[in-house]
């Protein structure tokens, strides 16, 4: 499943897409993110599945633009630490 966490408002679309089929629950993204955007746990949208997967924590979900801000400077943006650390390539940002 492609889980899109985030929001759309007047200033734009801010979504992090997690592919839970690719995600292996390794949890590398959790410490890689300086803002603590991720957590690994039960897939709440697939109630009949036991596999733990990564998700965006509720605390950050509705302010992703600001949570991810420090990793997304206007110029010379380095590769995002969360995307880089994910070996199964399960993470993607919409902006």
């Amino acid at each position, binding site marked *: 499943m492609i889980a899109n966490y985030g*929001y759309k408002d007047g200033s734009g679309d801010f979504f992090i897409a997690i592919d839970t089929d690719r995600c292996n629950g390794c949890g590398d993204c959790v410490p890689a993110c300086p803002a603590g955007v991720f957590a690994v746990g039960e897939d709440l*949208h697939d*109630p009949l599945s036991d596999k733990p997967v990564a998700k965006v924590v509720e605390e950050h979900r509705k302010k992703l633009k600001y949570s991810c801000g420090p990793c997304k400077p206007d110029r010379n943006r380095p590769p995002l630490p969360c995307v880089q650390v994910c070996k199964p390539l399960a993470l993607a940002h919409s902006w």
Partner: protein
Amino acid sequence: MGATLVVQETKTLSTNKEFWRWKEYRWHDETLDWKGAGVVSAGVDIGSVSSQAVILLDGKLFAFSNQRTGFDSPESANQAIQWAMDGTGLTLRNIHYTVGTGYGRVNVPFADKAITEIACHARGGNFMYGPTVRTILDMGGQDCKAIRCDEKGKVEAFLMNDKCAAGTGRGMEVFADLLSVPIEEVGDLSLSVEQEPPPVSSTCVVFAKSEAAALLRAGWPKNKVLAAYCAAMAHRVVTLLERIEVRKDFAITGGIGKNSGVVKRLEKELGLEALKSPYDSQIAGALGAALFAYTLEVKRRSS
């Protein structure tokens, strides 16, 4: 010497008609007898604006209720299930498994489990619209969800926006109130225009409301303003849907599924006709929850 105070008779205020109010109702199948059922399962969807309760007998639809959510979620849940059971002779004790869903899902006091509205809408949509449905758009009271599912109603992709009123029932209620049009008439009235006007330019309900007020002052008739707003809402929602890739068949759940003005414009923009269901589009979440409750009870008995 004192001035006599003259009290003028105050004008009696005309009854304040609440234009945003939609019909609350309940229904049950009088041909079915719950006493003969193996599994009685229930789903309760406590949304931020509306609440529904659905009761199934061995996975078959038996009863439901649809009403406005109060400020007390547990009380809304109790009222929803009681109203659904009204006249059937059922009591809470006879229900084997209940799943709570929606914004207030953790506040359903009698629920055995809470399951997210995304999972429940996919499951409920699959039941209501059939196994060909692949894309479900849920336009709820205060949020908007785009869900892609498989033939069994399992979620394959989703996106939820609950930060913004544009594309939600609340946004539509604001407009119905502004234009003094009962919300259940908004859809048909918006379609009565001769020519489709340009959509309102603002992506924000707050600014769209000011824009609409200006259009009214400029002489636009109500149906034209409504058409402009419905078009803007449909367009905004399409941008969300595109992010999860729309595949046919397509269906719309939630209250706005009953608004022909938004539905028709969405269909036009997507080039897809939305599937119709004999059931009320607002019960999809509670129905999915009741179906999960049925599965989980059967699983519990066989383990």
